[in-house]
């Protein structure tokens, strides 16, 4: 009998311990993602997953918030003309003569109580050092040009500095992308600039606490597998809700889902997680335990049109193509309405967006009239021919193995067949499609893919006539359609240097109307990220743009 009592007591203690353990593990959050960053150095190689993880451990001078407005993270306020922190200056040549070009000086002040994870204060020395690394052409920094546009940085004290930029454009007031490095740790690696990317501590000792100034710091990494973050004791901001965050990479989305259901992970990151159709299916089965939210973002899914093709060079044909397809039905039926139809490349949440543009409704009759008008008025076996006997046939390309895109392609093919256009689908693996076919303009008809962009992102590389990739310019530029329009060029050039918001908005409006009228591409929809969050987890706010939700990780907490 005594033995039974002891056994029962033991069982009770175990149960209590387990329950306590379960409650205490809520101090740890395990996030599942589908990718792993190549490097943790914030200036080398652009990867969304790297930004996602680093945002928990590092803060930038300024970012864009949930309202798609620039805000300070490390600075006290943004530098604007209104608050006197921004001043235009005339650029002079070496003889002191005005060149006619204008630059801008922007003064920033770092917040007090900013420390790297080893207790070293964040100062202007770090700002200046970062600039040195960024502008050196051999360090491997990705956005080198943005650093070389800076002529000088004047350091006023340990917290205040002025950036002197030779390029005056509307983005002058924020320093997005200026990811500061800890000078006291990285200067040794920078002694040989060409070897910097191999010797940076972010590569050789990424768990060094001094590399991080955010609410967390990285304490353990197994390359290709997981990253562990723990609270940064020198973080003076809001105390995060979790003592530890583990980010596990599980590339197969079906395995990612299984890991979530088994409890091995708590939450699937929307920025690098399940596809929309998988999330919709998951929501139908597990909505009692998980909240699934969808955030349409700046991922513009569209069809680039090869304007060198004589068929597509005719605006009537391009308009017929868009009138023939019911994009609302595609969004509703294939994506449960979670991916809003795009009418131009500017997202409705972007402040520059305008509704005052031409919108193309689903009107197959109008499409037929346009095609007749364009000379495609003979029909044989359901397909159109022109007077020379040429068939109205186009090739549609996209990424092979992408189930969503393949489904959309089939739907589009059937819509176009209904108006007499023969579409041949030819897909390629992503690296071939983007690395060769699209980048060298080898596609002949339509190419379906997505552009990632930032709020108020100037489409210079995608719409300016000087950005058409050619053999002569070594295939630089992303204007794959070959769109050449003088007015568009003028608008892009004007927007870039227009500092007044109201005037700029008008110019953006004109650009959007021109884009909608000329149709160098057929807008489809804005892709949505799916966030699968357990119901006990609160505070996650998707942003819809490249500054991920982890920039506010200190707001995440367990529901009380």
């Amino acid at each position, binding site marked *: 009998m005594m033995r039974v009592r002891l056994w029962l007591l033991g069982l009770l203690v175990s149960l209590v311990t387990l329950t306590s353990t379960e409650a205490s593990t809520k101090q740890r959050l395990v996030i599942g993602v589908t990718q792993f960053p190549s490097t943790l150095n914030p200036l080398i190689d*652009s990867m969304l997953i790297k930004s996602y993880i680093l945002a928990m451990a590092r803060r930038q001078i300024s970012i864009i918030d949930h309202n798609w407005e620039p805000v300070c993270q490390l600075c006290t306020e943004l530098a604007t003309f209104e608050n006197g922190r921004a001043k235009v200056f005339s650029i002079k040549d070496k003889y002191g003569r005005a060149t006619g070009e204008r630059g801008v000086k922007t003064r920033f002040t770092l917040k007090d109580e900013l420390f790297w994870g080893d207790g070293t204060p964040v100062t202007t020395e770090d700002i200046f050092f970062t600039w040195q690394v960024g502008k050196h052409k051999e360090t491997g920094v990705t956005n080198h040009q943005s650093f070389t546009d800076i002529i000088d940085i004047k350091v006023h004290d340990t917290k205040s500095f002025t950036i002197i930029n030779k390029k005056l454009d509307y983005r002058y007031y924020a320093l997005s992308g200026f990811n500061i490095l800890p000078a006291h740790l990285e200067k040794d690696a920078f002694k040989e600039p060409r070897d910097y990317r191999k010797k940076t501590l972010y590569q050789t000792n990424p768990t060094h606490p001094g590399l991080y100034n955010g609410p967390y710091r990285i304490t353990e990494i*197994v390359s290709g*597998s997981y990253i562990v973050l723990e609270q940064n004791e020198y973080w003076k901001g809001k105390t995060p809700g979790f003592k530890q965050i583990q980010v596990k990479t599980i590339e197969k989305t079906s*395995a990612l889902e*299984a890991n979530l259901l088994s409890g091995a992970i708590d939450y699937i990151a929307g920025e690098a997680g399940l596809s929309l159709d998988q999330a919709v299916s998951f929501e139908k089965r597990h909505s009692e335990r998980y909240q699934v939210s969808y955030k349409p973002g700046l991922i513009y899914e569209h069809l680039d049109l090869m304007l060198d093709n004589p068929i597509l060079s005719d605006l009537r044909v391009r308009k017929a193509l868009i009138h023939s397809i019911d994009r609302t039905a595609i969004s509703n039926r294939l994506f449960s309405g979670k991916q809003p139809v795009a009418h131009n490349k500017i997202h409705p949440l972007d402040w520059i967006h305008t509704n005052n543009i031409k919108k193309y409704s689903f009107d197959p009759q109008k499409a037929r009239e346009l095609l007749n008008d364009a000379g495609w008025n003979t029909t044989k076996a359901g397909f159109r021919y022109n007077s020379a006997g040429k068939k109205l046939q186009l090739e549609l390309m996209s990424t092979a193995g992408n189930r969503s895109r393949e489904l959309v392609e089939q739907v589009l093919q059937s819509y176009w067949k209904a108006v007499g256009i023969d579409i041949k689908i030819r897909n390629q693996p992503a690296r071939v499609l983007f*690395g060769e076919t699209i980048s060298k303009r080898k596609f002949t008809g339509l190419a379906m893919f997505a552009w990632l962009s930032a709020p108020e992102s100037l489409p210079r590389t995608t719409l300016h006539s000087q950005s058409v990739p050619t053999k002569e310019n070594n295939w630089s530029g992303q204007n794959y359609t070959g769109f050449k329009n003088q007015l568009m060029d003028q608008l892009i050039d004007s927007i870039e240097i227009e500092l007044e918001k109201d005037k700029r908005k008008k110019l953006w409006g004109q650009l959007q109307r021109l884009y909608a009228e000329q149709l160098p591409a057929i807008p489809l929809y804005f892709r949505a990220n799916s966030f699968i969050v357990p119901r006990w987890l609160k505070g996650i706010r998707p942003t819809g743009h490249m500054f991920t939700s982890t920039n506010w990780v200190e707001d995440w907490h367990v529901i009380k």
Partner: protein
Amino acid sequence: MIRFIINRTCQSLIILLVMSFFIYLILGLMPGDPIDLLVGSDPTISSGDLQRLKELYDIDKPVLERYLAWITNAVQGDFGYSRLFAQPVMDILSPRLFNSITLMGVSLALALLVAIPTGVYAATHPNSLLEKAINFLCFAGISIPPFWLALLFILLFSVLAGILPASGMQTIGDGSLIDRVHHMILPVATLSMATIAGYTRHVSASMTEVLQNDYIRTARAKGLLEKSVLWRHALKNALIPVVTIIALDFGSLFSGALITETMFSWLGMGKTIYDAIIGSDYNLALIGLLLATLLTLTANIMADIAYAMLDPRINYQKKN
């Protein structure tokens, strides 16, 4: 025998050198380079930055020039830098090779441990109920795709029963032997299923053929115990074709467990080589593929040695 091993080793080195050239050439001729692929993830990157990065990583140079630079460094022990992982190639591959050897070694050992006795039983009990069940299971094991099997195991043992981990090589913060073995169970089971099924069929077929030979009848007529006839006399000869198959499978076992490694997030060679090829990480892909080639060549040499041990009639010494 020693001379034979030395000769085969020298041949293997030449093969590796030739393979390194062809692999590098094929990788270099693949469309798209890693810098071009950056465009999709960074909307702000300028054309000038793209060109500068290509020059920095020597991607703008011709393939042959890059290969010559690589081979010059390789003979000095520098196998290059992985662009995907931003570390020396061997720092990436060494632990992954160990992980693959562990996974494959255990799977292979388990497969042989099960397949050999099962195959012998099937050969010695033709048309029995158990033999028919074994055949059925073998066909099922060969036919079931590893992707589906992996998901099924995860669903049954991780999601529903909750007794085995769904992925990973260890619990974060643990890493003890027991924990690692715990994490190995499902990937080993997934990999072993098809291997067990295939090897069982081969052993069974080979044993059936050997058991019909005259010397087996003679052995039985001489009054040897059936156990001795099977395991001492018949099995040795029946294993020769099986050894061939194992040797041929060796290379693909290491580089071809891609699906299992992906499903269970097992950091092995298969996944690494795949990622390197997709990500245009020339150095990593080249060394990974060369390692797979080296393993295949090594396995073939070992198979030849095993033949000599199994069959004394096989003699590699040159005849005068």
